[in-house]
């Protein structure tokens, strides 16, 4: 009979790494999403071009290829990253590109009259964005951001392939040590599902929180 408690501990350690990656990747993704999303609606051509290039590049290739590129090719350019850094960087930049389109769509969705009202009130562009446009655009972004966060969580499984000891990696370790396949893989599937469930519940709560007081403001 195998002693399962040690193996469960191993998988839980992996779960912590997965959580860590998801949180840090999400932070980077949100920063990139706002930078690139607002960059795409900038009035300067160069900024728009830069943001578009970033978005198309990271949406055009898969997370797997980007991760391998960051991990195996960047060292030749003199940039050596630990697996965790490479994972956070690739996941954050990848999901950030998807998030950027969400930010752009939400900002574009705010009606013309709001912008015109800002001009009439003599707000600068920065003020208009910060006090008028973004507070209204944020609730529109949240549901899709929630989906993107779940995509990021699912993306973290790929980092096991660059030898980062996340949940999937630990499951493989357990498989090779015990020869049992059903238990480790079922356990991590359930754990991933629970994490995804936690994200979607959290996002729904956040959505209620930011739309509070907005009832009746928008038609």
């Amino acid at each position, binding site marked *: 009979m195998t002693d399962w408690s040690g193996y469960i501990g191993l998988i839980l350690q992996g779960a912590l790494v997965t959580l860590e990656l998801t949180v840090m990747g999400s932070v980077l993704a949100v920063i990139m999403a706002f930078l690139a999303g607002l960059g795409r609606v900038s009035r300067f051509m160069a900024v728009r071009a830069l943001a578009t290039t970033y978005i198309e590049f990271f949406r055009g290739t*898969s997370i*797997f290829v980007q991760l*391998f590129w960051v991990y195996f090719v960047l060292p030749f350019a003199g940039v050596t990253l630990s697996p965790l850094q490479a994972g956070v960087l690739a996941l954050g930049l990848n999901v950030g590109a998807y998030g950027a389109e969400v930010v752009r769509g939400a900002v574009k969705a705010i009606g013309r009259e709001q912008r015109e009202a800002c001009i009439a009130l003599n707000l600068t562009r920065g003020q208009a964005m910060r006090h008028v446009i973004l507070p209204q655009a944020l609730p529109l972004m949240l549901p899709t951001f929630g989906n993107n966060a779940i995509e990021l969580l699912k993306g973290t499984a790929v980092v096991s392939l660059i030898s980062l000891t996340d949940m*999937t990696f630990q499951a493989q370790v357990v498989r090779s040590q015990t020869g049992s396949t059903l238990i480790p893989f079922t356990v991590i599937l359930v754990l991933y*599902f629970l994490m*995804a469930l936690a994200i979607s519940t959290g996002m729904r709560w956040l959505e209620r929180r930011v739309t509070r007081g907005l009832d009746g403001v928008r038609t």
Partner: protein
Amino acid sequence: MEWDWDFVWQILPTLLEGLKITLLATVLGAAVAAVVGLLFAILRMTAPKPIARTTGFIVEFIRGTPLLVQLYFIFYVLPDIGIRLPALLAGVIGLGVHYGTYAAEVYRAGIENVPRGQWEAAKATNLSGRQTWIHVILPQAIPPMIPALANYLIAMFKETPLLSAITVLELMNQAKSVANSSYRYIEPMTMVGVFFLIMSLISVVFLRWLEERYARVEER
């Protein structure tokens, strides 16, 4: 380390060999996804409540867990209960079932977006159930679905490198083995990125065209 064009030309045939498998997996996976998606959508919309809810849960579960782990599950766990699948087949099933759950949502949204009045009009003109579906509902439901489905097709194409983890010799795996035997990572990895970028830029143009052609039916 410098970029070496001679080496690129030398490995190009191997990579193209891998690209063929990648495309094959995408096409087969899409076919499986289309059928599985239809099955899920029908079960969720028409089956009795307990079955519909169970299907809903299964769909949510598959969507909430990583494709890579699902592929491991198919490739490593199923042999224990006597189902031994070749790697490519396991990969195609994994891709197909995973993206089938996304396709199911597209089907469901497409069918539910057909206005109620259309169903009632079909009934009023005494069409049979079959006639209603073939001549009234589907012609209105399918065109708006096409861009969304194509979008998932592209997403699936980009996920195919994951199949290398279960030993399918597709583009990524070919690149990895070339890199490992020659200790040169820059060219193979960059070439894989370039291949994917080119393919998906082409498909973005194609997607824009599809959207213009099909997405706004009511405006015609």
